[in-house]
């Protein structure tokens, strides 16, 4: 038996002894945030901290941060193609860099770098294009050749003989991962400490308006009057917006992820391969965390189909032959709200005092601090923050899309 000087799990931080209280909802709030995921909690936090607005409730239909926040593969990066995207994601990444201190919570933010692999000549062109755009936008980015990939992540199979050889990768050194629950709870605890009410098991079932303005929300725990209402419901955004008569260009899909058992460190970075839908990192305890591609159909069931996992595994093993005898420990799914251009919708709505934050699809975890900050600004000033200004609902009418799909920087 091996008994190391220190057991492998000994260094991991504990959660604090106190997180939040569970108050009864008040009759009225200045701002009601619908959805207690990362975005809702971060929005509440910045409303209180930056704008001094503390008469705020976060309403969560289930348990706090139990939606996509509890389910994502925690990849954080800002190396998106378009200026609009790099603006908000880089803003977010900068906030991540100070977040642990800001929240006083050990969020395990780890800038271990992210590799986005290229498998075809067109992937290479797209990747180089993105790297160059990133640099001009002030974002750290590199193009690395297969040998460079191997150096950063020695377990990647860069042999030219595989079905889809690795032709190179983009690398963002400042990118990385953080521990999702810790992030959510860090925001929740800090928001609570500034007076925000976190109300769980409280499902919003209706939105009341008068004279074109939002006035209240109906919930499973009664009516709550609200000066402003901010929707942060991720996969359920369409359902909520519809309560105010607003149609959204979103489709909610299952997105699956999985973990292995705890393994000795083998994977020092984060590897993403959009071409074969493999997104993998090794989390702090040692489990391999892998994301898959979305299930094709609309679904609110927090479950997906198994062939997606099987396909992902065969692709993963082509890239990482060493994973062969790792074991799948658990699979799960979230509900992601995918927009036509793979970019979010953040801003005002036709209803006064009602604000929208959705459409983050497969990649909104990384945006948590950034969008929390910008969305709080939008709510406080009734005017979009410059970083979320391009992400209006109107863009689908004007055609001013921010097409991250076409730009091959999709997912996570």
């Amino acid at each position: 038996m091996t008994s190391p000087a220190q057991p492998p799990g000994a260094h991991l931080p504990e959660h604090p002894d106190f997180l939040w209280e569970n108050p009864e909802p008040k009759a009225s709030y200045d701002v009601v945030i619908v959805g207690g995921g990362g975005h809702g909690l971060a929005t509440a936090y910045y409303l209180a901290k930056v704008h001094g607005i503390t008469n705020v409730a976060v309403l969560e239909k289930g348990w706090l941060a139990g939606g996509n926040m509890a389910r994502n593969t925690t990849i954080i990066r800002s190396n998106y193609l378009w200026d609009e995207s790099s603006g908000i994601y880089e803003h977010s990444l900068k906030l991540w860099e100070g977040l642990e201190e800001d929240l006083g919570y050990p969020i395990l933010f780890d800038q271990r770098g992210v590799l986005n692999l290229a498998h075809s000549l067109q992937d290479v062109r797209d990747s180089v294009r993105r790297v160059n755009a990133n640099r001009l936008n002030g974002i750290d980015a590199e193009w690395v050749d297969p040998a460079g990939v191997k150096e950063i992540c020695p377990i990647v199979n860069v042999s030219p003989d595989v079905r889809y050889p690795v032709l190179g990768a983009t690398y963002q050194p400042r990118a990385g991962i953080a521990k999702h629950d810790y992030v959510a709870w860090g925001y929740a605890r800090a928001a609570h400490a500034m007076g925000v009410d976190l109300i769980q098991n409280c499902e919003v079932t209706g939105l009341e308006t008068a004279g074109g303005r939002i006035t209240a929300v109906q919930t499973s725990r009664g009516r709550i009057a609200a000066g402003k209402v901010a929707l942060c419901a991720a996969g359920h955004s369409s359902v909520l917006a519809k309560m105010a008569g607003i149609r959204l260009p979103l489709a909610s899909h299952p997105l699956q992820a999985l973990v292995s058992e705890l393994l000795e460190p083998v994977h020092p970075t984060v590897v993403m391969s959009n071409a074969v839908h493999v997104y993998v990192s090794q989390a702090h305890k040692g489990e391999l965390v892998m994301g898959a591609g979305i299930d094709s159909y609309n679904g609110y069931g927090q479950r997906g189909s198994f062939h997606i996992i099987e396909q992902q595994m065969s692709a993963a093993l082509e890239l990482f032959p060493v994973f062969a005898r790792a074991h799948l420990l658990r699979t799960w799914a979230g509900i992601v709200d995918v927009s036509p251009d793979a970019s979010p919708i953040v801003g005002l709505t036709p209803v006064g005092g009602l604000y929208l934050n959705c459409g983050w699809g497969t990649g909104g975890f990384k945006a948590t601090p950034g969008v929390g900050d910008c969305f709080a600004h939008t709510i406080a000033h009734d005017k979009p923050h410059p970083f979320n200004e391009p992400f209006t609902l109107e863009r689908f009418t004007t055609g001013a899309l921010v097409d991250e799909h076409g730009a091959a920087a999709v997912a996570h």
Partner: protein
Amino acid sequence: MQLIPCPWCGPREEAEFHYGGQAHVAYPEDPSALTDEEWAQYVFFRENPSGPFAERWSHSAGCRRWFNAVRDTRSHDLLAVYRAGEPMPEVLS
């Protein structure tokens, strides 16, 4: 993996099918007569309910026919399947 009853071939594995989103969204009679808003609705906006949803599938690896289905998006249970051109059956939610 869902078992999808193709109205022609009978039940087959989901992997044989291609998903087509909301059903019964007609191409506008005269797109040029639409406002930008109306056109955007056609191009980008689809229903996205949590519950029964009339949607399109194509048996792409089988008979290559498009057909419609009503599926509960919460449970993923198929409530009804019907051929293109047929009216949507009454299904209770």
